[in-house]
């Protein structure tokens, strides 16, 4: 007989024993909902169905079920577990006996009530709020209506407008850079593009490049770049012309 394959049909679980263990170890099944006594009963029934006593199976079952019981006990009495561990065996037995007695008395009380219920089975009477009634709504603590109003007023205030300014691409006019470069070229005959616009945001650098191309198209400047990614050098064309003229006349 294989203990792990013991089929169980409990309130909280239905299936083989090893699946129950797996679910418990994975915390997917609350051990406190599991009636361990019912597992023991199922095992004993299986055992009784066979004529032979299977000691291996009994041993394995005892180990598993005691581990399960310990886990459950720890789960049910988290603080008391530590307290009990410190008890002397005598005192622990005393405590256990006290608890067993308490449970036995309640079981007896339940049996008494059951008998009573059966004896009173032929008493019919009218009941007020129907049994199996829907649950009563929990009552709320008294509240100040003004507080609710204040909370609502707070909700009614329109939220502050969120600024999208940072999201818009704002292009400065090309003319701004045309003026700027012309001014620079009036002072100097030659300048370096990166040095002039390096401090500006990328968008403005792009507009500056457009301005540069515009100046090139109108023949006001010459653009030079020794190699890809090398500094772009800008010079006034009239200076260039002067230079070539000087060279030719020389």
């Amino acid at each position, binding site marked *: 007989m294989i203990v792990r394959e013991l089929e169980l049909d409990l*309130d909280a679980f239905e299936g083989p024993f090893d699946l129950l263990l797996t679910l418990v170890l994975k915390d997917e099944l*609350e051990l*406190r*909902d*599991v*009636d361990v006594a019912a597992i023991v009963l199922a095992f004993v029934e299986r055992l009784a169905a066979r004529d032979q006593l299977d000691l291996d199976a009994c041993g394995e079952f005892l180990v598993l079920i005691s581990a399960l019981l310990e886990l459950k006990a720890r789960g*049910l*009495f988290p603080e008391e577990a530590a307290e009990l561990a410190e008890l002397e065996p005598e005192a622990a*037995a*005393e405590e*256990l*006996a*006290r*608890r*067993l*007695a*308490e*449970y*036995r*008395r*309640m*079981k*007896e*009380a*339940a*049996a*008494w*009530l*059951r008998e*009573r*219920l059966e*004896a*009173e*089975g*032929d*008493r*019919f*009477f*009218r*009941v*007020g*709020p*129907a*049994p*199996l*009634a829907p*649950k009563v709504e929990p009552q709320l603590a008294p509240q100040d209506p003004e507080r609710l109003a204040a909370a609502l007023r707070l909700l009614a205030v329109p939220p502050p407008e969120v600024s999208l300014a940072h999201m818009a691409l704002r292009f400065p006019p090309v003319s701004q850079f045309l003026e700027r470069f012309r001014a620079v070229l009036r002072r100097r005959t030659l300048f370096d593009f990166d040095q002039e616009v390096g401090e500006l945001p990328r968008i403005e650098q792009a507009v500056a490049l457009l301005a540069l191309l515009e100046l090139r198209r109108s023949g006001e400047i010459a653009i030079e770049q020794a190699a890809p990614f090398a500094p772009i050098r800008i010079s006034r064309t009239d200076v260039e012309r002067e230079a070539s003229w000087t060279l030719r006349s020389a």
Partner: protein
Amino acid sequence: MDAPLRLIAGNPLDQLAKTIEALLVVASAPLPVEELAEAAADDPERVEAALGLLGERYREGRSGVVLEKVAGGWAFRASREAAEACARLFEKPAQRGLSQAAMETVAIVAYLGPCTRPDIARIRGVAADSAVASLLERGLIAEAGREDAAGGAIRYRTTPLFERVFGLESLSELPRLDDLGGDVEEIRDRLHAVAEKRTA
């Protein structure tokens, strides 16, 4: 002249008895004497006397309606003779199919209440959530505040319906716990015997 008049005067409590009869018919739960007295605008002692009159009139075997003292008050119920017919008319949902777990749980609440779910779980060794939910739904137990600290566990107590369903005048009619077995001495001796056998 006086004698014939006294004969037709009848019992001076008759009028009060009629009023109480009416109150009990409209009530959906047992009414305590004080409540009857207040509604009838009469003296509690006279109400008790009138209830005595009614009890005689509505007793088992004499009437289809029986007056009984139950759940701390007075109420009408059907006579036991009519039980079969009543059962054909309607079932009794409050006590239908009460599981062993529910019986033990309601016993714990009746004796120890107000008590919390952890209290019940500690005694029974199994979580009491579903038994408590079922008893709440049946109206046999009800919430009775929370444990002291804020967010403390909800406490439960049994309801007047519990007393009525189990035919109890009050919870004091339950047998004393000490009389219910579960002798600590005996259990301890047995534990020791088992322990000795194991170590032997």
